[in-house]
């Protein structure tokens, strides 16, 4: 084990050994969730601040549970009703929080690069919990953990990511992590929602769902943000669902052991039919469960790291 980083900012930064260490550590953390007393004393006396500038229930709760199971004190700093509304800058808020000596700041922000900016200015560890359309590394790690757990390995697997790749930090982090781990990635979606020059990331682009999912070991469906329709990216939600929604009929054309993933929250009946979301191939709830374990591993490794900015 050789975790040397002060911060976790992106999957692009991590090499295969680091990702492997994180996943191995997360796997051992899972056992704690099955205990009657779900608490270990490891991070006693450490403080984790959740600094969320964007709405989030799942990710924030997941970090909160992860910290608490490790005995850290977790403080949620939500932006509504806070100084940000009174016009304080991100950096000023962060400096004020740092004056209270946290060990880890978990940050979500609508601007890409906001966590990297904080990491440069703060002495404590910074975790990116989603920044704009850039990255969401802990989501990619929990996805990789889920795939590795179900398939036994990552190397050589074929993953197809379907939907709004252009606006998705989940897709970007996953593509980076999956390429590093030796996986083949196809992205599929309407041309308006696939970024230009996407091939430069080392992925195959497809504009036909049936063709994209036929040989996939894993299908990752992305959430269709309703704002996209107003933005003119798709003609209508119904049309999108008809062309890009994963239904039982389409699933029957897939590999027999295919995994269906979704970062949540699911738009039932839009990108995933309810029968598929709740069906035998869906691992959506495993992803949520693994999310806590991955965040425990991240908090554990970062609080031990002596690296400085």
């Amino acid at each position: 084990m050789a975790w040397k980083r002060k911060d976790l900012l992106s999957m692009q930064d991590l090499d295969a050994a680091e990702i492997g260490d994180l996943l191995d550590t997360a796997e051992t953390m899972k056992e704690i969730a099955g205990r009657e007393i779900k608490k270990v004393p490891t991070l006693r006396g450490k403080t984790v601040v959740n600094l969320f500038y964007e709405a989030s229930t799942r990710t924030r709760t997941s970090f909160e549970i992860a910290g608490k199971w490790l005995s850290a004190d977790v403080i949620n700093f939500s932006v509504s009703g806070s100084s940000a509304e009174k016009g304080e800058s991100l950096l000023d808020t962060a400096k004020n929080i740092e004056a209270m000596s946290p060990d880890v700041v978990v940050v979500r922000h609508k601007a890409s690069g906001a966590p990297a900016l904080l990491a440069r200015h703060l002495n404590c560890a910074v975790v990116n919990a989603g920044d704009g359309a850039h990255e969401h590394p802990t989501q990619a790690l929990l996805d990789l953990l889920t795939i590795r757990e179900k398939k036994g390995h990552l190397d050589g697997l074929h993953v197809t990511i379907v939907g709004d790749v252009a606006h998705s930090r989940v897709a970007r982090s996953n593509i980076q992590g999956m390429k590093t781990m030796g996986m083949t990635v196809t992205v599929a979606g309407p041309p308006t929602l696939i970024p230009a020059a996407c091939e430069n990331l080392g992925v195959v682009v497809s504009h036909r769902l049936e063709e994209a999912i036929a040989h996939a070991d894993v299908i990752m469906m992305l959430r269709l943000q309703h704002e996209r329709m107003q933005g003119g990216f798709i003609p209508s939600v119904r049309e999108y669902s008809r062309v890009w929604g994963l239904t039982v009929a389409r699933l029957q054309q897939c590999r027999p052991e295919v995994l269906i993933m979704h970062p949540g929250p699911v738009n039932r009946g839009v990108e995933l039919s309810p029968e598929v979301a709740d069906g035998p191939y869906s691992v959506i709830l495993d992803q949520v469960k693994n999310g806590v374990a991955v965040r425990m591993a991240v908090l554990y490794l970062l609080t031990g790291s002596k690296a400085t900015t």
Partner: protein
Amino acid sequence: MTYRDKTQVLDEVTLDRALTRIAHEIVEQAQSVDEVALVGIKTRGETLAERIAQKIEAIEAVKPPVGALDITLYRDDLGLKAEQPQVRSTEINFSVKGRIVVLVDDVLFTGRTIRAAMDALMDFGRPRIIRLAVLVDRGHRELPIRPDYIGKNLPTSRREIVAVMLREHDGIDRVVIREPED
């Protein structure tokens, strides 16, 4: 720093005899073997616990359950090292409530590992009794901890290392004392 072998203290035969004696002592002291469970401390303690359980089975025709404990998350020196130690899995697939739990480790030294192991065990429930079995007690305790079953008492100097080698990990059963080459 490199180390050289100083003395061999146990070989395949004497190591096996020590475990056989520990198994008999555990059986003798427990009112009923059904109450006994063994929990080995990773990694070699787990192997020793499994071997002792097999010996108890040979004596009593009942094999006590065997668990494995990784104490990393309970260490008292976290944050003092350059990086976090690797966490390995803990597998205790039985209830410890009301049982006689025998913790098993290869070498008892400062006692800090055992302190951590007892804390970890308590998080799984309330055993009736916790006892401690070690293959080697090398002294230099830093906490008020005392083993109940000892394979070999071994006075050592602090600068020496006690190396326990087991077939399952090292291809051979033996215990040696090593000293620094200087």
